């Protein structure tokens, strides 16, 4: 029997590489439904929903990876899964955004004495000058 055709699979997330290697078939949870991809699939780009990506490697083993969502890119000889590490949904994201806004508002409410930008720059310049002086002192003392 001739060598079975394989396709290169890379699964990466923002926080690290998850899997890289050849595969006979990849099954992924696309946003429109489960999707099975064999080598020489037509170029395809789709979003993934939360679920598991199954990779059948040439040695007959099957690998399972959980993804919280993400994107799937298929090129004739290569499959790239851009996986989310986070479980995300529109309302979850929305809640996180609202929380971030609230934190900012709270921080602004007790913002003590206001200073102007010029004063802030002057304060920074002073700090920088102090650092420089310390450096010089250290050199002097050798």
């Amino acid at each position, binding site marked *: 029997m001739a060598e079975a055709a394989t396709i290169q699979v890379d699964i990466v997330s923002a926080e690290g590489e998850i899997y890289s290697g050849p595969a006979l078939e990849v099954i992924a949870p696309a946003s429109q439904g489960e999707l099975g991809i064999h080598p020489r699939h037509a170029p395809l780009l789709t*979003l993934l929903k939360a679920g598991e990506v199954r990779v059948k490697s040439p040695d007959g083993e099957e690998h399972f990876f959980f993804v919280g969502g993400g994107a799937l890119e298929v090129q004739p000889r290569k499959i790239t899964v851009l996986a989310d590490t*986070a479980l995300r949904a529109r309302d979850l994201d929305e809640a996180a955004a609202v929380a971030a806004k609230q934190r*900012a508002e709270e921080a602004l409410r007790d913002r003590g004495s206001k200073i102007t*930008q010029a004063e802030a720059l002057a304060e920074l310049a002073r700090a920088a000058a102090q*650092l420089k002086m310390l450096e010089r002192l250290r050199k002097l003392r050798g």
Partner: protein
Amino acid sequence: MPGTKEIRTKIASVKSTQKITKAMQMVATSKMRRAQERMRLARPYALKMRNVIGHLTQAQVRHPFLEPREPKAVGIIMISTDRGLAGGLNANVFKQTLLLTREWQGKGAQVSLCLIGTKGLNFFRRLDLPIMANVTGLGDRPHINDLIGTVKVMLDAYREGKLDRLFLVNAQFVNTMTQKPDVQQLLPVEPMDTEGLQEHWDYIYEPEAEAILDGLLMRYIESQVYRGAVENVASEMAARMIAMGAASDNAGKLIGELQLIYNKARQAAITKELSEIVGGAAAV
């Protein structure tokens, strides 16, 4: 022996300070290595993302994140550390942000901030600039989950036309000795050079291209902010390592000087006592 006791206490106190700074230096060194590793791990995702977006932009898909607009309002996401004792790291980032703010205000644009990290919040909340979102306490291992909400506030503002530009300012990790503030334009996404892309094929899109591009661009920006946060941690640890190393050296020098003073004082006391005894014996 008057005075020597004070010197001894001083030496003991400097020694205990030195122990702390040495420990902090070692902790920072190991944390820096781990942060560098995470920086390396985040790279393939961003690269692959860039490739895919590069393909997409060639396929003539339009999206507000890709179209430059007249800059009337500018957003700046600034990443700072949560804790101090990191040399001039934060001060440099603040200065860069203030300069950027001034530059855009000079061009007549409104500037709003999004602050990541306690130090930045404490500094900028005294300024008269609107803060749209903030997140603190990311720790030494920032997670993308903690950033999603904060970034979304800025992206939504951009979508609604409340912002026309979005920048990211963070400390760039050049090497262990050098960290410098870095400004990167996040939105509109600058055209990506897609090398080795001569093939003229288009994808099958599921669902339509716009929805995919939207999801991808959002994740791309988030991953950039995540990268900035991780890089900032690496810079923080490197800066702290150097600062604490210098502090330990200085403490060592101080101990040396104090020891010398102490020895002199001790010797002076002994000499004095001896001469008193000799003087007393001669008088008898």
